[in-house]
């Protein structure tokens, strides 16, 4: 009984944090389902793809891949490029995901932007099991996305509510997390480097090619800052 309570506790603690994502994913998922519908795919496509790929932006791109001439190697490399940012999530979560047992496989499987942003920044209450908390953050997000895509795919043509701009809910979530992190940290070098270098990279390379140069610039700067930042931490 104790184990059941522990899970329920963690689920209840995790839910409020995922609430913005519930809104965002249901609407974005619906938008994705409708998009697939408009391209002529039956509902089974968004249902299977939202469940297996579980990486929002990549699924929109995958829809286009399915309409282009068959080229699996291109599909693989494009995915690696678009999702390269996950490498940074993984490196950031090496420690956080330690000791979570079998759940770790699922935590890594579901390491999307939104799950990462919550799990890396949240202060989990003391009486809540860490592993299960992060599991439910990931699992709830996965459910929202899957449900949204299924709804959109099945009854896509019936949605009449104008949802234009709803995607801003994700932007707003990331900004709030950024501010919360900002308040917690003593040095803002890394946050500023991430924001500034990504912006510079976006201006130079454009929307479709900026992520990898931005990642390289961030790595370079953080490598140079290693000594001064570590020194600051020791004295702080």
């Amino acid at each position, binding site marked *: 009984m104790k184990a059941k309570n522990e899970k329920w506790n963690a689920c209840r603690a995790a839910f409020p944090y995922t609430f913005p994502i519930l809104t965002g994913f249901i609407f974005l998922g619906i938008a994705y389902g409708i998009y697939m519908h408009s391209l002529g795919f039956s509902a089974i496509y968004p249902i299977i793809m939202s469940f297996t790929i*579980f990486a929002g932006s990549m699924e929109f791109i995958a829809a286009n*891949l399915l309409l282009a001439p068959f080229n699996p190697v291109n599909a693989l490399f494009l995915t690696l490029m678009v999702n390269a940012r996950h490498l*940074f999530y*993984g490196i950031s979560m090496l420690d956080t*995901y330690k000791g979570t047992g079998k759940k770790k496989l699922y935590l890594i499987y579901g390491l999307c932007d939104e799950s990462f942003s919550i799990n890396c920044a949240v202060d989990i209450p003391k009486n809540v099991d860490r592993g299960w908390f992060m599991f439910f953050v990931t699992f709830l997000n996965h459910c929202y996305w899957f449900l949204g895509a299924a709804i959109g795919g099945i009854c896509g043509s019936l949605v009449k509510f104008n949802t234009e701009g709803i995607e801003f809910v994700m932007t707003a979530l*990331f900004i709030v997390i950024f501010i919360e*992190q900002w308040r917690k940290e003593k040095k803002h070098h*890394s946050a500023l480097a991430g924001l500034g270098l990504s912006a510079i990279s976006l201006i130079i390379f454009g929307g479709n090619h900026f992520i990898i140069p*931005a990642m390289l610039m961030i790595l370079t700067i953080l*490598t140079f800052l290693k000594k001064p930042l570590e020194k600051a931490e020791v004295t702080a």
Partner: protein
Amino acid sequence: MTMSLMQQVITVAMVVLGTMLTRFLPFIVFPANKPTPKYVQYLGKVLPAAVIGLLIIYCFKDVSLLSGSHGIPELIGVAMVVLLHSWKREMLLSIAGGTIIYMILVQVVFK
């Protein structure tokens, strides 16, 4: 549709494989039962702040400053979130406020 069902399955499988590679690779290269190199530990500590910054910029990748609405709705939306959050520090309020303002701007003001 030009692809056969099998080709579609392979294409989706490639996207799944690519996504999973990017998610699992760090955990495979630096397994939990072996000490993680100091440099990677350092990156694990400082990267999250930078990556959230990258994610914010990523949200604006399709915004053009030179055409359309010149990124004004985005700027106002961001300002709204920052203001609300500095004022009340209620996550859901900041997110809802910013999003509603943004939706009004793109649907009604900057059509």
